């Protein structure tokens, strides 16, 4: 097998990579239905939430600098843009959690149906409306949570 000239971290077999779809394979969710969209969103929301988590740990560490440092940090985060960002966090965390629960059940083999004898037109049993409803519910709950979060953050209470 030919190997590439690249060394170290990016060394890989050229033959293996030939014609692989690469990152754009999972960055384009539009071609294969709701399950692919759910996969894409679960991954993006996960990455986004990890970034937020790290930022949040850094944000709260300003507590150790006393009231002045904490209030300075609040001035930076408690802005309309900061609130919009928090609303996005609320939506993504709601979606990631709800869809994550669906995936735990699915990956445990629940809610998929039993294997049988497929008939034309061979609609896949695993891509059933229970699964699709789970995805839609996760999206709806995320929207509701964002609406509620927006009310709390911009409501002025």
């Amino acid at each position, binding site marked *: 097998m030919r190997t590439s000239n690249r060394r170290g971290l990016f060394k890989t077999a050229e033959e293996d990579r030939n014609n692989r779809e690469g990152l754009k394979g999972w960055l384009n969710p539009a071609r294969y239905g709701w399950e692919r969209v759910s996969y894409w969103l679960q991954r993006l929301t996960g990455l986004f939430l990890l970034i937020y988590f790290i930022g949040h740990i850094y944000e709260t*560490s300003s507590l150790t600098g006393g009231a002045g440092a904490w209030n300075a940090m609040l001035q930076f985060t408690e802005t309309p843009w900061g609130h919009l960002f928090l609303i996005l966090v609320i939506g993504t965390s709601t979606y990631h959690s709800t869809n994550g629960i669906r995936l735990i059940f699915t990956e445990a083999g629940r809610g998929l149906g039993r294997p049988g004898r497929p008939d034309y037109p061979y609609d896949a049993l695993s891509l059933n409306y229970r699964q699709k409803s789970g995805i839609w519910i996760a999206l709806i709950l995320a929207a509701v949570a964002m609406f509620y979060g927006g009310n709390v953050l911009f409501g002025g209470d």
Partner: protein
Amino acid sequence: MLRERQIMRIHYITGLAALFVVAVHILMRLIMPFHMSLQYSNVIANYHNLPYVVLLESILVLLAIHGFNGLRIILLELRQNRTWENGVTISTIAAMIAIIAFGTRTIIIANGLGVV
């Protein structure tokens, strides 16, 4: 060395457990008007409450494990060679430990050892 199925079991358990503790953490922000809950005195009062400190520490540990394992999975799928795979595993574990240590430091200091 953990097997991949054991790591995935940990991934699912930490995800589910984090869901509950984060829900409590958010509810604590809503027992009073949101902007008041972020006032310095109120936040420090939270950090002096031992059950809440335990809750914060568990959020920190559970989310760090779940989040960085998720990142490890995504990165492992990107490239396949020993250097990359070992690099990804070591760096995600190191980042996980670092974030837990940094967050724990905040909790300990805010709890009263450094700030009153």
